[in-house]
């Protein structure tokens, strides 16, 4: 158990991802960098309203190599070229983690915006499903300030 969005919680998510992809066939050989911007919306108690939390994640050969919380929305640099960005309101990210809404529904409905080469995601649908399953069901999460759905 770990409090949501803490380093311990992300470590557990990383572990859950890597356990799930271990031994999977057909993993993409590419190294991918994913930016995640969780925007405070006045509903989630985990991100202050009018501020955001930003994360940068590296996926290599299908596994999570590292994640970092960064001060500002990550941008491509000479060293790290971003492949995808997920952006959305904090309460929606909370709802995904809490199993209240499905991440695919959130993306299809445009609640969480996805930017990047969608063809690659479509072609790697099976792998994407595994990553999402680890994120949403792989960790027992504590919600010290309250749990979604919020009233």
């Amino acid at each position, binding site marked *: 158990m770990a409090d949501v969005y803490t380093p311990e919680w992300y470590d557990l998510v990383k572990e859950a991802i890597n356990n799930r992809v271990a031994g999977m066939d057909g993993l993409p050989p590419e190294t991918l960098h994913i930016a995640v911007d969780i925007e405070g919306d006045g509903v989630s108690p985990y991100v202050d309203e009018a501020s955001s939390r930003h994360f940068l994640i590296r996926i290599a050969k299908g596994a999570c190599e590292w994640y970092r919380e960064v001060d500002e929305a990550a941008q491509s640099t000479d060293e790290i070229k971003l492949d995808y960005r997920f952006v959305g309101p904090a309460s929606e990210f909370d709802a995904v983690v809490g199993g209240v809404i499905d991440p695919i529904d959130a993306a*299809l409905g445009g609640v969480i915006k996805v930017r990047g080469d969608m*063809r690659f995601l479509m072609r790697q*649908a099976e792998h994407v499903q595994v990553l999402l399953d680890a994120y949403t069901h792989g960790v027992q999460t504590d919600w010290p300030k309250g749990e979604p759905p919020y009233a």
Partner: protein
Amino acid sequence: MREACDVVIIGAGHNGLTLGAYLARSGLDVIVLERRHEEGGGLCTEELTQAGFLHNVHANYHTFVDMAPPVHDLEVRSHGIEYVRPEVQMASIYDDGTALTVHADIDKTVESMARFSEVDAQTFRRLYDEAHGFVDLLLGTLMYQPPMSVKELTRALAQFGVEDRSEFLGVKLRRETINEFLDQHFTNDKIKAHLAFHASVCSYTTDVKGLAIGFPLLVGKINNWHLCVGGSHRLAHALWRDLAQHGGVMISDADVSTIMVESGRAVGVTLSSGEQITARKAVVSTVDVEQTFLRFLNKDAVDVELREKVENKIAHKDWTLFSVHAAMNRLPEYEAAEFDPDVNRAWVVNLGYSSPAELNEDWRLIRAGKVPDPRPNAAVNSLYDPTDAPEGYYTGLLRQFAPFEVNGVGAGEWDNMGRWYGERCLDVWKRYAPNLTEDAYVDWVPFTPLDIERKMPNMVRGDWMMGEISLDNMLDQRPLPELGQYRTPIEGLYMGGSTQHPHGFITFGPGYNALQVMAEDLNIDPWWRQI
């Protein structure tokens, strides 16, 4: 005279200019060649009737504004473009005097539909919400990327369980017509007629198997129709300005006669004037497949099998458009305004299709070469752009679905019957708006399917989508499997016009997608991909 550059682009329509502008911004030396006296292709605005009346000869509806990446990347609005999104986007007027209106505000559209069927109005609301929600994802996946295959898409949709999550989206749509989709989800004929009419104006024929797959996307942007103030041609100017500001050159009156090929590689073009322009990196054709492979390329440069396919297998739309461009001294006042006053403010009005069956019957007639009794749609741009006519005057545009070849005697018949058919279309308009008597028109001219091809030879058979809209001619199969990824079997020669995925209309898609492929091949830094 022999000029040299990095990339030669044949055709200065919006795709050619868009591609050219991106490449110029990427530091390449670009020349865009246009056969006509000015740039624009389908972005053609002319004073067809009288001085001061600006008529959009081809493209009138800009439905991808703020959705298409080039609008942002090329800072189109900074080049003098102003778009208006009409409050009342569209309407259907039915023979019983009722009318349905589509508004920029979707709540008002739902209210209008509810006057015909509360259940259908709520269904439409759910369809719109769902489609509008995933429109970004669909555009990113389907429109503004080189295409995936239907098989790949189907597999991914199944893997993500889209069918189980969605009331409207699903793999089965690839086997259905738009009519079937409408019958499954809607009950009221007038609502179905309007949605079918809307799809048809977008060139999605309602009785063609498989086109249901594109229908939700059409609904997701049903209230995103924009008018380019001062005429659609302004967009061409804006793109040309961007090209020029970044060092690119557009040459008009430049009729390409040959694409030069050396050792299997495209190395430039020869103009009919004899001038040669060599291309160090690439030649791009944004005109039709037929001209590109049968006229511009020498026979020995094209594989025999490909040549035969271009001769025999390029599919064109089986209907086209007959238009009337009118200079008017009054706005239409529809009798149906008693039922819904907003029809008088509707930009585009369907005059008479009250059921999908009526559209189906017209498709049947048109395919048989018959000219149907007119049920035109009427657009009055001046309602939202007073600059397109002198003060106190207005422009009108009637468009009628029509065959290219008439009554088995060929397209030439349009020269004999254009004026007559135009009068019939105007008679229909007057039936719904009785104030449009003969003296309402300062002038008017017909613009026939044959005129389309004469003015724009790349719109073969008046095919303003530059290729049939069908499942067999979509995605990576468009226009042929071997040309479906913008590359051609000739090294250094690319296809970047509306013959390619996604299709015609002012999407910017073909040019933008060709850019992605060229960036990969030519090692161009894709600065436009903002993650």
